[in-house]
């Protein structure tokens, strides 16, 4: 239902930007309270070690130190965290739960695990106190290699489990063995996709303030899930939920790790505030972030693709190892995503995917933008590329021949997705996406003219074109409350948090559209548990789908209340009402109208009687929970230039043709895609967390962990198509992660195309000039 105002689909400038750009937005580190104390953590230098002893007495004596806590000081509060996401019920699934504790008590399982917490007058003094502490750590051999970890006799991350196997699951459809037997060509390779960090511009931070007089705890937290954190904290501390308020203020980027819950710091700061009766702050510094905040995403795949000589896919088999780090609180979300996203836009009759999740002595792995989808896409797109080469087909052509046709929707892939529901593509129209991308990157002309001409000049240009389908907008649910104020302003409150996605604007647009008010007159509140008590958080590209729809539904209920009241007030025949410009009028008779503000005032009488069953005010709350996620899709195409002498790669053009269903705000969608592509380019070509064989991180600073800068990322050329989702009234699909998903595959294809050397295959991410040099040298060696 689009109001006369037509706010949906408009590139409304973001309402939150003025505050953000003029320094008037509150971030966690902006919170200053009288008597605020500061925290630093003593963290393990070893990846795997027994904690034999910890002497903090000197630290306690240092002037300016208020308290030092170790595991022993926590008493009954020392307990391991909950499993946050129950394992998806794949038949036969094996899952061994092992979760993190607030402070190490017996054994260190990854570098950076916290051993002790110092509370002091300033962060400077707290860091001085760290030097006073003496930890007696007995190093143990570290578990880092995924295959070695599963071999008999390997050191164990969790002795009580007797194994480093954290989980195992197989999902199947059709009959891959038959497909393989019937195939004209089977292509098989081993792929490796390495660890990276989310590297949000704002690190994590917490301020916890327990007021002993009001017996209330207020926590500011850079979390993507304020409501679950509130609930968990109340339970952990033995408080009523109403005594705990969690505020997620403006947050400088989330990208996934901030949806990880019950981090040690998240529990310890509130607990310590209760002990001391004073407000306490911890702001993670960048170096800590590399160890203390979750990351992603090492997987090793042995995969094969069975095709006919025409390039039609008969089946795929994939066996992969997934590194979960030292603990597995987030269940199977990432490897399931990898399994599901591998299927892509294609018709895959038979599929067999088996994964084994492995514990290692590295920090915990939880979803980071893309959340395992990159891996599935990389494997499938690369296999198609190698099959194309083997069959003498163009890489675009082999994709064309396997696209699901538009009449195939809804398409049930039969395997389970991360929301435990079967993976069903709700809507999509893939061929036009592909052709539009081919047109925008000028594929034909590039291959026919530009590439050969460049080669003659000694330049190596290459093109890559890849696709993806992304499951988005999953449940369980979100809620929203819409209230028309007596002033005429509208207040929208929802339980999700915002880390830069533009919710303040898009949710306002949705409500503005229904109620006919200006977006500027709508205040959106997110991320405060005192305002809204029910919800799960911002993750998995679901904000606009689930919370946005809840806003829509709540606005519709407010509208029907307004209609009922206006009909009474505007007299007989006031059936067909128009909501526009903050007024409600009879269509065709603009003089018979009443301001929405007036309706709100009338809806809340101070005296008199109302009919039984009437709710006061123009306010309504609604919840939305889709029974499954909606699937967005897209094509990425890029042109690179490789300097064959120096092994350097430059991106010349980057095109994204994208379908995220109905677009609420095109500018915000474009921002998400541009940012996602930057993230993808980082993963593909610059970013790699380098862990050595002893579980040591060799690049824990932005000097050596390379994030692409604005100078390294091209402006993405974009086109949109919309296949609305039938699963929600707005027809929207998620878009937060899309840009980051297929970039690795595009890079690999484009660089191979530029170098045009059948002996040079890119089977791993990230790529770097150093690695490209090695591959080029190896190729030469093979020829010689």
């Amino acid at each position, binding site marked *: 239902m689009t109001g006369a105002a037509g706010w949906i689909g408009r590139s409304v400038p973001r309402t939150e930007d003025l505050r953000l750009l003029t320094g008037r937005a509150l971030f966690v580190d902006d919170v200053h309270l009288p008597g605020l104390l500061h925290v630093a953590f003593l963290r393990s230098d070893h990846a795997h070690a027994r904690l034999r002893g910890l002497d903090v007495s000197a630290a306690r004596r240092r002037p300016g130190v208020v308290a030092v806590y170790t595991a022993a000081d926590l008493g009954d509060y020392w307990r391991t965290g909950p499993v946050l996401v129950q394992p998806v019920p794949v038949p036969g699934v094996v899952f061994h739960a092992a979760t993190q504790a607030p402070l190490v008590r017996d054994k260190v399982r990854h570098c950076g695990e916290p051993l002790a917490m110092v509370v002091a007058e300033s962060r400077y003094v707290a860091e001085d106190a760290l030097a006073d502490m003496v930890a007696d750590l007995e190093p143990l051999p570290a578990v880092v290699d995924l295959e070695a970890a599963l071999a008999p006799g390997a050191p164990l991350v969790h002795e009580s489990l007797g194994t480093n196997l954290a989980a195992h699951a197989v999902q199947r459809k059709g009959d891959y063995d038959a497909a393989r037997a019937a195939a004209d060509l089977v292509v098989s390779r081993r792929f490796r996709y390495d660890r990276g960090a989310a590297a949000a511009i704002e690190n994590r931070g917490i301020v916890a303030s327990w007021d002993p007089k009001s017996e209330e705890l207020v926590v500011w937290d850079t979390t993507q899930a304020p409501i679950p954190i509130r609930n968990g904290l109340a339970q952990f501390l033995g408080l009523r939920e109403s005594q705990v308020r969690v505020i997620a203020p403006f947050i400088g980027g989330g990208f996934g790790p901030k949806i990880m819950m019950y981090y040690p710091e998240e529990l310890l700061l509130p607990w310590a505030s209760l002990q001391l009766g004073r407000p306490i702050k911890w702001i993670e510094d960048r170096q800590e972030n590399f160890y203390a905040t979750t990351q992603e995403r090492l997987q090793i795949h042995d995969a094969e693709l069975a095709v006919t000589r025409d390039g039609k896919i008969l089946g795929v088999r994939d066996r992969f190892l997934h590194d979960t780090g030292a603990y597995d609180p987030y269940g199977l979300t990432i490897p399931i995503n990898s399994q599901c996203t591998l299927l892509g836009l294609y018709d895959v009759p038979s599929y067999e995917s088996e994964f084994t999740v492995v514990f290692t002595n590295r920090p915990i792995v939880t979803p980071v933008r893309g959340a395992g989808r990159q891996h599935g896409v990389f494997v499938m797109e690369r296999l198609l590329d190698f099959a194309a080469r083997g069959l003498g087909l163009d890489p675009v052509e082999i994709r064309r021949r396997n696209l699901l046709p538009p009449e195939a929707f809804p398409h049930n892939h039969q395997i389970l997705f991360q929301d435990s529901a079967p993976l069903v593509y709700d809507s999509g129209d893939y061929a036009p996406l592909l052709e539009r991308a081919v047109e925008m990157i000028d594929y034909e002309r590039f291959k026919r003219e530009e590439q050969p001409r460049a080669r003659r000049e000694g330049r190596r240009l290459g093109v890559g074109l890849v696709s993806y389908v992304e499951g988005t907008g999953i449940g369980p649910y979100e809620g929203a409350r819409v209230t028309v104020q007596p002033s005429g302003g509208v207040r929208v409150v929802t339980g999700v948090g915002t880390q830069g996605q533009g919710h303040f604007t898009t949710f306002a647009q949705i409500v503005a559209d229904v109620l006919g008010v200006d977006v500027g007159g709508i205040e959106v509140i997110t991320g405060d548990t005192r305002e809204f008590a029910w919800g799960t958080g911002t993750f998995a590209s679901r904000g606009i789908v689930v919370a946005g729809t809840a806003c829509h539904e709540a606005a519709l209920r407010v509208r029907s209340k307004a209609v009922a009241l206006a009909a009474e007030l505007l007299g007989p025949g006031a059936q067909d009402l128009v909501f526009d410009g903050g007024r409600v009028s009879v269509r065709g008779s603009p003089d018979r109208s009443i301001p929405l503000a007036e309706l709100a005032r009338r809806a809340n009488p101070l005296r008199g009687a109302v009919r039984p069953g009437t709710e006061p005010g123009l306010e309504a709350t609604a919840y939305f929970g889709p029974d499954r996620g909606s699937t967005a899709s897209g094509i990425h195409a890029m042109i690179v230039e490789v300097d064959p002498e*120096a*092994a350097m790669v430059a991106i010349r053009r980057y095109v994204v043709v994208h379908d995220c269903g109905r677009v609420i705000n095109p500018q915000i969608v474009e921002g998400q895609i541009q940012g996602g592509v930057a993230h993808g380019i980082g993963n593909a070509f*610059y970013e790699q967390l380098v862990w050595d064989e002893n579980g040591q991180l060799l690049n824990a600073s932005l000097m050596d962990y390379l994030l692409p800068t604005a100078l*390294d990322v091209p402006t993405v050329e974009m086109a949109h198509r919309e296949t609305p989702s039938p699963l929600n009234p707005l027809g929207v699909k998620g878009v937060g992660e899309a840009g980051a998903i297929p970039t690795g595959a595009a890079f690999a294809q484009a660089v191979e195309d530029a170098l045009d050397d059948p002996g040079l295959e890119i089977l791993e991410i990230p790529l770097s000039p150093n690695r490209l*040099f*090695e591959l080029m040298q190896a190729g030469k060696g093979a020829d010689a």
Partner: protein
Amino acid sequence: MKPAPFDYHAPTRLDEALQLLAEHGSDAKPLAGGQSLVPAMNFRLAQPAVLVDLNGVAELAHVTWGRDGGLRLGAMTRQRVLERDRLVADQAPLLAEAVPHIAHAQIRNRGTVGGSLAHADPASELPAVMVALGARFRVRSLTGERWIPAAEFFIGLFTTTLESGELLVECEIPPPPARAGWGFEEAARRHGDYALAGVAAHLELADDGRCAEARVVLFGVGEGPTSSPSARDALLGEKATDGVVGAAAAAVAKDIEPSSDIHASAAYRHYLAQVLTGRALGRAFARAGAVAGPVP
């Protein structure tokens, strides 16, 4: 990442600064742009007991003509000033070409010539450029002053011939000779990163077009700026041909000993050094041959 406690002094005159350094000896570190020292302090890898802040010593920052042409640069001259100064572009075009490669503009706004040279990071550009230009440095202490040729100043990993209590106060760059050519090449992962390898090349041609002098200085491939005598030998007396350039580029391999790290293997650095030298020498010859008289 907060530094350990330290005492702080902000002298406004050079003799005051030298007095403080002499008094505190190895407990004190001079603070110039702070772009290397302050991060090291924040990581607590450096914990000087005393910081002597030179940013208030106005007499240390200047860009002026040398005695017979050329340049005199005060040690506290900001890198960003070098980048934009016409005198520098005129008298030391190699320097003007190299400076934009140093980190990012924001860092160059604070970073100084003297700070970078005294710090002697093996991947940094300025030491190599100064050696290629045949520069010399004026060094002061409480007890006196001495001049040190750039080629003798850098003696090891982060190590210069500066003694305790000494400050580098000025760089003198000779005027560009007639028929001089220069080339600067650097390979880095991103704009402004530490160089994987780099080269600063300075050539002088005789009237007959043959190479009369050559200084090929590499960085990022050893413990400090690394001159390549082998490249020099391959160039002296030769005319500019692809063969000569190729031979000189290949020759640098003998004079460098790069290390491996997570960004590049020693083998890749070796290879890059040769590729970059070839490109730098090509440009240097082109520039030298392009004009018959003094370099504009």
